[in-house]
């Protein structure tokens, strides 16, 4: 079928360049490696952590990095190394959940609204535009405050902020594809609208959605950290890099730099990983003029 081939046809040069070591491929590989190792570290954390990350007073309070505690301890005497190992779980879960919510809401709504056109399209676009134009963090804070603490609630508030992005991407693709000759041809031979949607339009969306999703992952991680900073994160008994940053802030004047540095670097790495994947993939799927 033409559309499937077209997508694969577009990917082929990219994959080939991956094999040749092209820059776009390299970027995706680096990003994936980063993300994968962080995920692995988080999954293995119960076994590789020297101490229970939530156990308090395993060491002296606010002590600098030493042999016993390579990354130091925080204000409750918790081992920072163990907390760094296990702190990524919350962010990863929030990122995945928010992408999931966005997909199950944004994609169908986008497909239906933009495909049927007319008033539905305009109305939904208006709503989505108001959400989109609005400072995302404010919206996320409002919804998170409404729902309370917890991974699912954070994911929901982030999802609300990002659904418009998905919607836009879907809509622009749908509008393009709807006018393409082969779609018209399909209609001419009597294919049902639903068939057209599912077999013609949807497969072409996958590429763009994947790119949006990876960008969404990166932003979700940063927004999750931001929400935690404002006090709307998960319950504090769960180890989380965002909480380490928030708590460590008060320790700076007394010179305890290690509490915020290591978790902060991990957050940067994780967000960076996803960003790289997104950048690389978008280059592969939409090669730029300079190539």
């Amino acid at each position, binding site marked *: 079928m033409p559309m499937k081939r077209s997508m694969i046809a577009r990917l082929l040069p990219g994959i080939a360049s991956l094999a040749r070591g092209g820059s776009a491929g390299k970027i995706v590989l680096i990003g994936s490696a980063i993300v994968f190792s962080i995920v692995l570290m988080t999954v293995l954390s119960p076994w590789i952590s020297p101490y229970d990350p*939530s*156990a*308090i*007073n395993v060491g002296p*309070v*606010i002590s600098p990095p030493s042999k016993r505690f390579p990354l130091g301890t925080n*204000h*409750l*005497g918790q081992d920072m190394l163990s907390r760094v190992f296990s702190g990524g779980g919350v962010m990863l879960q929030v990122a995945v959940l928010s992408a999931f919510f966005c997909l199950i809401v944004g994609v169908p709504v986008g497909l239906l609204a933009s495909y049927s056109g007319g008033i539905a399209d305009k109305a939904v676009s208006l709503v989505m535009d108001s959400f989109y134009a609005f400072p995302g963090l404010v919206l996320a804070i409002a919804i998170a*405050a409404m729902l*309370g*603490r917890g991974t699912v609630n954070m994911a929901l508030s982030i999802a609300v902020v990002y659904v418009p992005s998905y919607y836009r991407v879907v809509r622009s693709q749908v509008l393009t594809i709807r006018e393409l000759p082969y779609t018209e041809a399909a209609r001419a031979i009597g294919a049902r609208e639903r068939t057209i949607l599912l077999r013609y339009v949807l497969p072409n969306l996958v590429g763009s959605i994947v790119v949006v999703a990876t960008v969404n992952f990166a932003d979700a991680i940063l927004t999750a950290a931001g929400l935690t900073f404002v*006090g709307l994160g998960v*319950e*504090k*008994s769960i180890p989380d890099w965002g909480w380490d940053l928030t708590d460590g*802030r*008060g*320790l*700076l*004047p*007394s*010179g*305890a730099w290690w509490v915020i540095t290591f978790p902060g670097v991990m957050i940067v790495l994780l967000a960076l990983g996803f960003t790289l994947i997104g950048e690389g993939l978008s280059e592969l799927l939409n090669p730029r003029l300079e190539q």
Partner: protein
Amino acid sequence: MKMKDSKKGLSTTVVIGAIVLVIIIVLAAWYLMAPKPKVKALIMGTTDSVETNIDPAEAYDFFGWEIIQATGCGLVQIKEGTPYGAGAKDVMPSLATKWSVSNDGLTWTFDLREGVKFSDGTEFNATHVKYSIDRGMSLAVPEGAFVGIGFSDIIDSVEVASKYQVKFHLKIPFGPFLSLMASPVAYIVNPKYAPFDKTVGYVEGDARASCPNDLGPYILTNWTRVAGKDYEMRFKANPNYWDKGLPKSEELIIKFYADATALALAIDAGDIDVAFRQLKASDIENFKTKTNVKVWEGTGAFIQYMIFQQKIKPFDDPVVRRAVAAALNRTAICRTVFLGQAANLYSMIPNGMMGHTDAYKKLGDANYSFTRSALGALGYSETNKLEIDLWYETSGHYPQSADQAAVIKSSLEASGVIKVNLHGLDWPAYRVKRGEESMPAYIYGWYPDYVDPDNYVYPFLHSSGSSWLHNNYANSQMDKLIEDARATADAATRESLYAQIQDLMVEDAPIVPLFQSSAWAVTKPDVTGVYLDISQVWRLWLLEKR
């Protein structure tokens, strides 16, 4: 389109660069080479701010009271450095020179100081006392100081006996009446700036209109708020203050900082002379090692306690409550969370106050054998743990609540038969949940309204206390003891009554006190006049820098 520069005339970049360079050099010279001007005023930094206003009829926050005490004056005051407060020897004359109480305890007579002038020249007399108290009671604003303290439950009427004598007729005999009169709610206002039917709030750009108080050591000259938050307050010495020789500093400036970090950095850099409330424990520990600042430690009166909701099983059973209380480890909290800057508290009455006994020590700290046997008798064991949902607030209303909760969880779980689930809520939601009576165990704190054991006992252990604590505790025997203790002014009787009250409290264990915080101030080495005593009065007028 720009053409290439002609050979005549200077190139654009050089000219602009020269101008910029000149400007930078001038600015740098201007700025860097001169010393900081010596500011005469004493500068204090704080993270507090005025919550509502500085009207004695409404203000109910620590900082609001601090300012009322600096700009206003009451009938009596508590001596600085007082060891425990509320005893006869600790109350000093202020606007009243002598006082006495009738035998039935229902009439208090105060002789007033003569020749004291308001800022507009009017002479102070007994009518102003009546005006101030009547105004406070009649205004009855939401959660006003008068409402919160229950003034109107205590005072029946104020009588102007003569020009310089005023009599208070009480509804019930009230032993701690002097402490009540020393608290800022009873301070005298200037009728010209304090309308009888309205409270006085912040007025942009007009410090006099924002301050109904008068007769105090300082006059408020400037009060700036930006974006709804206090920015700065300025004061100058009141020439009409009755106590000549005070205030020690001619001018006072209060700067408001957004958080402890900013405040710590400011005092470290020498931007301010005094830093008071609230510095983090780690900052204070850090300052103790530095030579450019001086750390003052004193008695705190802020306590924190855990409440059990007696409507929810199994906390309707005092055996369970006592068992959980015994498993708490106060030392861990004080050491881990506050780095030793708080003291274990075994009674609702703080350490150092009259009537205090270490009642809860009977149950002990981390007394796991007791906990296990008591809970074991009820069927709880390692495989069938008692599950507790412990709630705490997350808005910073109390210091480091989340950390306290974490330590409490770990010490309770160390007993082996308890499992704790932590739940944090921000302050508004926490308040709502308190009213819903759905939290099995929750942490709360308390600052005193007036310095007397009654203020630590009546709101918590009397059955009327559950109207705001919502813990559904009522014991008529306890009620009788408390009412007796507050009716008399005799210290010995009160002490023995409070001992009984505290023993009964441990038996019922409706509330478990956790710790009492110390009070801290950090100042430049040349600052004197810092008194951190049990009265919790921050005497701005005694601060002085050499």
